[in-house]
């Protein structure tokens, strides 16, 4: 799991250092909003999946 996060982080850093991408976002600001919304959505989904897993563990321990 941490390997995936590290790899994703490296990709993000590499993309942010690339000037063409920054310029693209500066010109198409709607995509910044899209990025923010998708990050929030990813956070909610991640939280919900963790919660789901924890409930499953509790159910299994109660059996």
């Amino acid at each position, binding site marked *: 799991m941490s390997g995936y996060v590290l790899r994703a982080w490296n990709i993000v850093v590499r993309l942010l250092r690339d000037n063409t991408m920054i310029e693209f976002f500066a010109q198409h600001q709607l995509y910044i909003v899209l990025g923010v919304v*998708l990050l929030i959505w990813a956070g909610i989904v991640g939280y919900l999946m963790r919660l*789901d897993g924890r409930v499953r563990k*509790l*159910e299994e321990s109660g059996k």
Partner: protein
Amino acid sequence: MNYIRMSAIVIITYVLISGIAIPIVPQPQGWFEFPVIPGLEEKARNIFFHVPTAWTTVVAFLVSMWYGLRYLRTRNMDDDLKSEASAGLGFMFCVLATITGALWAKFNWGSFWNWDPRETSIFILLLIYGAYFALRSAIEVEETRARLSAVYATLAGLTVPFFIFVLPRIVSGLHPGAKGDPEGAGPVVEFKMSPSMLVVFILGLIGFNLLYVWLLNVRVRTARLEYRRSTPQG
């Protein structure tokens, strides 16, 4: 459940991407462009998020009524848990629909709250379901609480189609679909969706409903755990 979970994630992600990123242009050339809706312009994107939220409210309240009715027939406490969980989710979606609607109204109708029939009816629904939770918290005896809540959920559920589908259509107002506006040519905007928008809109409805099913599943399972903990023999 896994299919529902994955479908909810994929569909809502698609709706978010296409709903926000697809450009709105005067002369759309295909599915990758949305037409300009006069009066709404960029705000038209709200349709993909606000309406599914309101729609999920209706589904959740009707499911709450369904499980309320089932409880009255079976006296199975699990049905009461499902009825309460669904009403809770319906209330949450109802609050979100009210807030997003008020925000949208400010920029289309001039103020956050106009006592438009649609706004009034959703406000009454919030009061009705707020009273449902007040009722539940006021009764300590489990069976009595479940029985009265089931009766209340049934009566409250019966009012939902009236307040959402009937009242706003028989009284004239600002919202598209009000009396005298059967085609969506309202007093403020002419509201018609192109096929490209309709696809994203319908996917939005499906995605939000799947998300509701997922949330309901988690909520019911936690409620069951709480119930077993409070009554070890149950």
